């Protein structure tokens, strides 16, 4: 069972932008209720998509630079990066079935 990895301003380039597999980045903050709601769903998905999509999370309070460079102004905010570029973005809390649709679309 792979779990989401924590990334920050310093590691973002290496772990997300230079990744060979697509990376879903969960932009979150400790004060965000829906982010905490989404966390267990993302952990489940991290297991289901292991090897195909890497799951990462970035705390926007601690890493304002990365959050600002992607215009993050609402969380939860999930961006799926493919080859160093945002390929898909999901804003707000979404149930698992809907997230899977977006993930599968990126893999196609």
């Amino acid at each position, binding site marked *: 069972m792979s779990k989401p990895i924590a990334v920050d301003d310093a590691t973002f380039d290496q772990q997300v932008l230079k990744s060979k597999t697509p990376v879903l980045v969960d932009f979150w903050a400790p004060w965000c209720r829906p982010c905490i709601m989404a966390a267990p769903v993302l952990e489940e998905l991290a297991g289901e998509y292991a090897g195909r999509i890497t799951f990462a999370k970035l705390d926007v*309070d601690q890493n304002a630079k990365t959050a600002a460079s992607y215009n993050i102004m*609402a969380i939860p905010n999930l961006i799926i990066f493919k080859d160093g570029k945002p390929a898909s973005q999901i804003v707000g809390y979404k149930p698992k079935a809907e997230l899977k649709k977006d993930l599968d679309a990126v893999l196609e």
Partner: protein
Amino acid sequence: MAKEYEVIIIGGGPAGLSAGIYTSRARLSSLLIERGVVGGQIADAELVENYPGFAQGISGTELGQLMQQQAARYGLETITAEAIGFELKGEKKVVKTTKGDFSARAVIIASGSERSKLGVPREEELTGKGVSYCATCDGPFFKEKPVAVVGGGDVAITEALHLVKFASKVILIHRRDRLRATRILEERARAEPKIEFLWNSVVEKIEGEDVVKRLSLRQVKTGEKSTLDVAGAFIAVGFKPNTDYLKGVLPLDDAGYIITNEKMETKVAGIFAAGDVRLNSAQQAITAAGDGATAAIFAQKLLSE
């Protein structure tokens, strides 16, 4: 095969959790289906000040958790799943969810409502890019920036009062010349130097390429048009009931609300509705809790007949 219960409750806000406390204490096997976390809309509230029994107020999250703990003590089962369909099989009701089917003779619908959209150009594209429906969720992204709140009810004022902690100023845009909000909230808003009021005004368009830059406004009395530079637009113009999964099963009003009688019964025997999902609900945690208890008591009566 659908797993069977005596009562299924859809929604884990104050209405659903209160219903669950009652049905569980009545020793009815009960399942509560919640798509997110328990608490419903109050989970977003920093402080609930009008729920009796909490003299100093209580955080919405904590109130929701306490209700759940109380229900769990009596055996209420809760699953995280979303209701996606509903079927009637004689007396039995089958609730289809993202985690399988469940059936019961009595179902209490307490799936609540969510924020309405304003319905103006660019609103959808800029959602999460300055357009928001939750100040407690997104407020901290607007530190030292001007923001607008659209609406004039309790939710709009509560949002504005929360945003003053972050924003450089908060402009409240309301289509009428006075607020609908509770007096105590209005008094607080008027005493807050960072809040400005823009009366008799409506938003016609939200502008900005990647992020919100400004709003196009129209003065409803004079027809005069203007623009307002803001980094954020918090929309608080009402609610939409979460009843899409019930279309064709239950009679709904034009806006999608469920019509009930004073026993919280709907037109279909064995289906009850409670809380904000009901037509003409007062949309308060305390009234939702009352609805939930009422629905549970009449569901219990029906099952014992």
